[in-house]
């Protein structure tokens, strides 16, 4: 049944072999690989200890090991000791007894430094003055033997690939080179690099150890050293640079040129089939017309796949053998870029059918390429601009609907329009206004700078607290925006440190970045804007009543604090520690705390905390989330709903107790106290396009990008929807450009899928990964999906046309 079509595919190969095209392609590929092949790294890695070098310090090292091996907070030294031979251990114990007390060393222990929440790099090295003095004095026979034995034992230890154990070293902060080697993966290290790692680990743990030489990588082209690359760079730096440059060259040059060559080479496959006397003979055979067409298409694609496989496989082997970088992205590129070619080839086939000319096929395929590029670039520009203006918060207040975008610009939705509520422009200097305008189009905010707005129940004024820890242009470092009671104007007030604001019966409660709580007396805050442009009125001390606590809690971000008005308690998250501040004796005091095991030993990971009704939820940048009972801080649930997308918003409904967690990929998950063991995708529409949400008296208000705010009841039914129509440009983007872009193939964006497939940025496997720091490609499968649909469409149209064609 398939024999005729296989014969056509085989004939396509026969034709390329006969036309020498195959040899030309192979020649070009071989040329590229031959040019790359001589490029390699030579790394100098100092690890080995010599007995001569150890002589001055051998006794100090031995004494340090013996003194620390039994200390409970020195698991690393204990591990070193247990791996020494037993006969050596006896000798070292004797030597330590005989040795003089060691000079004082740095008192701070690595794990103490870690507990302080600071990333401390431990000094590597011994007391070099001491070692120099000893060297000058000459060594006794015992010293020489001890140094020799110690050198042998430690060198043997360093060759042991099982020496490093993450559990044992978790209390130590490693230097960058050691951390890089650990991150690379122990099983992927060569013996020399594994020994280097062990040497660095020994130096990290034993202060008496002599400092190893720096490792460096030199780039060589065959036998010539490329001296313009500094010799002091590490291997990792060189490899990262080459990888980045290579990806760029591959994507922009080799692949673009390669695909162009492939299109030119295959452009004549269909037109030559239509030559008089050739097509008639083929069609007289008992084969399907579509089978004939598809076999020709497949023949061309397989030929290009073969060439691409050889090229990418060669590059993969070169990178691995020459640079030590086994990058699976290169292998994933093979099938994906064959699909890219097939998309263009499907266009070439259709044009070849219509015009029966190879030249026209190439030209119109080029036009198609340009169209894809133009649509993609235009869409990305508008999407970037639109993304930065996504609605992050929306709410009905006194019957009116208000929304705030990621830049904290406030809007009121009136019917079909989104009317901006002015912020007093006299408060912003021209530079700030310009900076804000640029930031709105260019910046990619990892997190919104403002805390969830509140409505003061007494005055009906809306308050928004800002902080700008990232230093984004045009946005003040710290301020409070307060509306007038009619909510027709917002005034910005300078406040030294306002991280978050919460509504309470006694008035707005402000929280600073240090966790200090104050009550704001709104009656003392005026409503008139500043008279002078570029200035802002100040929230003065007489407007604030400090309410504790008496200790500093390092919050840094508004997402790390939440308030439950019913319980009158604050939840604060600093590092991995959850604190609950309760109202006692006219101030907020620490009531309870718990260390949350996020699975990560990173101190600065992004995090969120929120109160439900009687529960507190915590979420970290590695997408792990935990729920605790508020009273006893007993953990009741743990989840990791997403693996590659960080949480951007964690909110709790103080009425129903539900807790929602929104991830950067636009998916909203919901936890319900009635079924505490499960976290489910919220029953709301357009999951994947949610940009913000908030709870309001048991209902949930969802923001979808820039075009919709919906209020949904707990049972999932719509209460109301507001979809402002937007301006001409927005509507053109929404109704024309975006659908066209979605349907159009995106051959230039396959790198997103390559990145996604090859990426080790998966929090399941690396708990220390803060996903907020990782580029996330939204819907990385979109280029493949739309490409395959488009290709199927082109082949389908070609089939229909060909089947009806009178040849």
């Amino acid at each position, binding site marked *: *049944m398939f*024999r*005729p079509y*296989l*014969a*056509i595919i085989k*004939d396509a190969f*026969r*034709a390329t*072999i*006969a*036309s020498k095209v195959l040899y030309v392609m192979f020649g070009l590929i071989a040329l590229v690989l031959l040019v790359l092949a001589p490029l390699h790294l030579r790394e100098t890695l100092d690890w080995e200890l010599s007995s001569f070098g150890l002589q001055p310090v051998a006794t100090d090292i031995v004494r340090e090991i013996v003194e620390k091996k039994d200390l409970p907070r020195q698991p690393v030294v204990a591990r070193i000791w247990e791996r020494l031979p037993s006969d050596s251990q006896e000798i070292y114990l004797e030597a330590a007894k005989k040795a003089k007390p060691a000079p004082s060393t740095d008192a701070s222990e690595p794990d103490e430094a870690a507990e302080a929440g600071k990333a401390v790099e431990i000094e590597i090295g011994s007391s070099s003055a001491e070692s120099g003095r000893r060297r000058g004095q000459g060594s006794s026979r015992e010293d020489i033997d001890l140094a020799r034995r110690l050198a042998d034992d430690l060198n043997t230890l360093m060759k042991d690939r099982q020496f490093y154990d993450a559990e044992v070293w978790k209390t130590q902060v490693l230097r960058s080179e050691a951390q890089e080697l650990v991150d690379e993966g122990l099983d992927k290290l060569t013996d020399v690099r594994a020994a280097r790692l062990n040497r660095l680990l020994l130096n990290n743990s034993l202060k008496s150890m002599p400092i190893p030489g720096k490792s460096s990588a030199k780039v060589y082209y065959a036998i010539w050293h490329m001296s313009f690359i500094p010799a002091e760079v590490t291997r990792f730096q060189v490899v990262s640079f080459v990888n980045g440059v290579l990806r760029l060259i591959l994507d922009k040059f080799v692949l673009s040129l390669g695909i162009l060559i492939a299109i030119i080479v295959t452009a004549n496959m269909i037109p*030559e089939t239509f*030559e*008089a*006397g*050739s097509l*008639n*003979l*083929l*069609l*007289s*055979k*008992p*084969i*399907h017309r579509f089978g004939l067409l598809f076999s020709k298409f497949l023949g061309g694609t397989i030929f290009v796949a073969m060439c691409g496989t050889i090229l990418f496989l060669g590059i993969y082997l070169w990178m691995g053998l020459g640079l030590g970088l086994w990058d699976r992205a290169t292998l994933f590129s093979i099938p994906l870029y064959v699909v890219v070619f097939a998309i263009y080839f499907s266009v070439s086939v259709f044009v070849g059918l219509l015009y029966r000319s190879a030249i026209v096929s190439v030209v119109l395929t080029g036009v198609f390429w340009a169209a894809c590029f133009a649509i993609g670039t235009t869409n990305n520009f508008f999407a970037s601009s639109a993304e930065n203006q996504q609605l992050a918060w929306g709410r009905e207040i006194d019957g009116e609907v208000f929304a705030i975008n990621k830049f904290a610009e406030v809007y009121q939705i009136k019917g079909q329009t989104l009317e901006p509520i002015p912020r007093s422009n006299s408060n912003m200097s021209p530079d700030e206004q310009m900076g804000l305008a640029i930031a709105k189009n260019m910046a990619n905010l990892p997190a919104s700078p403002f805390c969830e707005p509140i409505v003061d129940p007494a005055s009906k004024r809306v308050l928004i607290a800002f902080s700008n820890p990232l230093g984004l242009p045009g946005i003040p470092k710290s301020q409070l925006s307060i509306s007038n009671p009619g909510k027709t104007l917002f005034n910005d007030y300078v406040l030294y440190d306002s991280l978050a604001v919460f509504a309470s019966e006694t008035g707005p409660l402000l929280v600073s970045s240090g966790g200090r709580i104050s009550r704001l007396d709104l009656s003392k805050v005026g409503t008139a804007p500043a008279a002078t442009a570029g200035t802002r009125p100040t929230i003065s001390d007489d407007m604030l009543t400090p309410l504790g606590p008496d200790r500093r809690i390092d919050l840094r971000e508004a997402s790390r604090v939440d308030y439950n008005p019913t319980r009158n308690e604050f939840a604060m998250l600093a590092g991995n520690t959850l604190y609950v501040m309760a109202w006692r004796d006219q101030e907020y005091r620490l009531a309870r705390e718990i260390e949350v095991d996020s699975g990560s030993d990173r101190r600065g990971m992004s995090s969120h905390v929120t109160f439900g009704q009687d529960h507190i939820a915590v979420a970290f940048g590695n997408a792990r989330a935990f729920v605790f009972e508020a009273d006893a801080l007993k953990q009741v649930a743990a989840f990791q709903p997403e693996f590659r997308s960080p949480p951007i918003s964690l909110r709790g409904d103080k009425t129903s107790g539900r807790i929602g967690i929104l991830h950067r990929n636009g998916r909203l998950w919901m936890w319900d106290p009635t079924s505490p063991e499960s976290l489910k995708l919220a029953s709301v529409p357009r999951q994947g396009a949610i940009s913000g949400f908030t709870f309001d008296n048991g209902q949930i208000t969802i923001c979808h990008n820039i075009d919709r705010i919906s209020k949904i009841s707990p049972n999932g039914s719509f209460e109301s929807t507001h979809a402002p129509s937007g301006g001409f440009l927005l509507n053109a983007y929404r109704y024309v450009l975006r659908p066209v872009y979605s349907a159009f193939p995106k051959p230039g964006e396959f790198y997103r899928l390559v990145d996604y497939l090859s990426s080790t940025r998966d929090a399941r496997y690396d708990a220390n990964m803060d996903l907020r720091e990782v580029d996330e490609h939204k819907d990385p499968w979109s280029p493949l999906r739309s490409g395959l649909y488009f290709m199927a469409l082109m082949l389908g149209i070609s089939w229909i046309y060909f089947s*009806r064609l*009178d*040849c």
Partner: protein
Amino acid sequence: MSAVANAVEVQQLGKTYRDGLFGRRAFKALTNVTLTVSQGEVFGLLGPNGAGKTTLLKILLGIIQKTSGSATMLGLPAGGRAVRSHVGYLPEHLRIPGHHTVLSALDLYGSLSNLSGREIRLRRDPIIEMVGLKGRDKEPIKKFSKGMLQRLGLAQALLVQPKLMILDEPTDGLDPRGRAEMRALITKMKVDGVTVFLNSHILQEVELVCDRVAILDRGHLKFCGSVKETGQVMRQSTFISLDVVVNGEPLAVKTACSGFDVQQSATLPDQQIEINFRLGDQEEIDRLVDQLRQHHISIVSLKRKQASLEEAFLAILGKSESN
């Protein structure tokens, strides 16, 4: 496939080509063509350029679609994949990609007909020898002459051991020996029970091999019958061709022939003169004979010339034009 009486049956077949914007321009290539081709016969399809011959062939093979009517081959709908595996086809202006050799080309076209590699290997050598390509099977085709290419085309058609062979200008490009060999092959196919449907401009070739012929003109079927029946058509035409050999003085002969349509004359040895007359009917023949005798011209021989196919062809077309 069950035994069927007719290899090809065409009933009221019509084809209209459409061109221009939304296909507004229409051209009728075939109009109500009805013919049959019996099993085992050699059938010739004739007609001037643009008559619709190739269109008819292409409809039978499914290369183009009919507009109206019906057609079957070997009892199956014409143009279907099922029947195409039993049909061998040699197209006009055959083109086989130049990267092939004879062996690889037969391998390709045999595979397209779903023959296995083993079957192809078993069948191809005798066929290569039959078509006169023995010893050249590994040469690249791009070095072949037109005639050799034609032989290869025939070989690929024979490879499937067809029950019906469709040949479009099979002797195109062949030298006289090649044409003779082709005619011999066609005769052999007939002996083997293969039905041959051929389209040719060379009427002498058709006359030599075909049992029956059809004549198309501007999409209409003008004649369908045996080659002999074309003579009857000729006799029904407006003139009789008469060859007369006489003995006499040229001047006297000339005088005796006055009043009659002399087509040509030639002097033969022994003072004989051969004259070809174009006469209207038998009565005029009688008057000619009387006149010659009146002038004492001795009539050596008198022969009523049988109309050639070409003459019949032209006569039929001429009738068609006058109609």
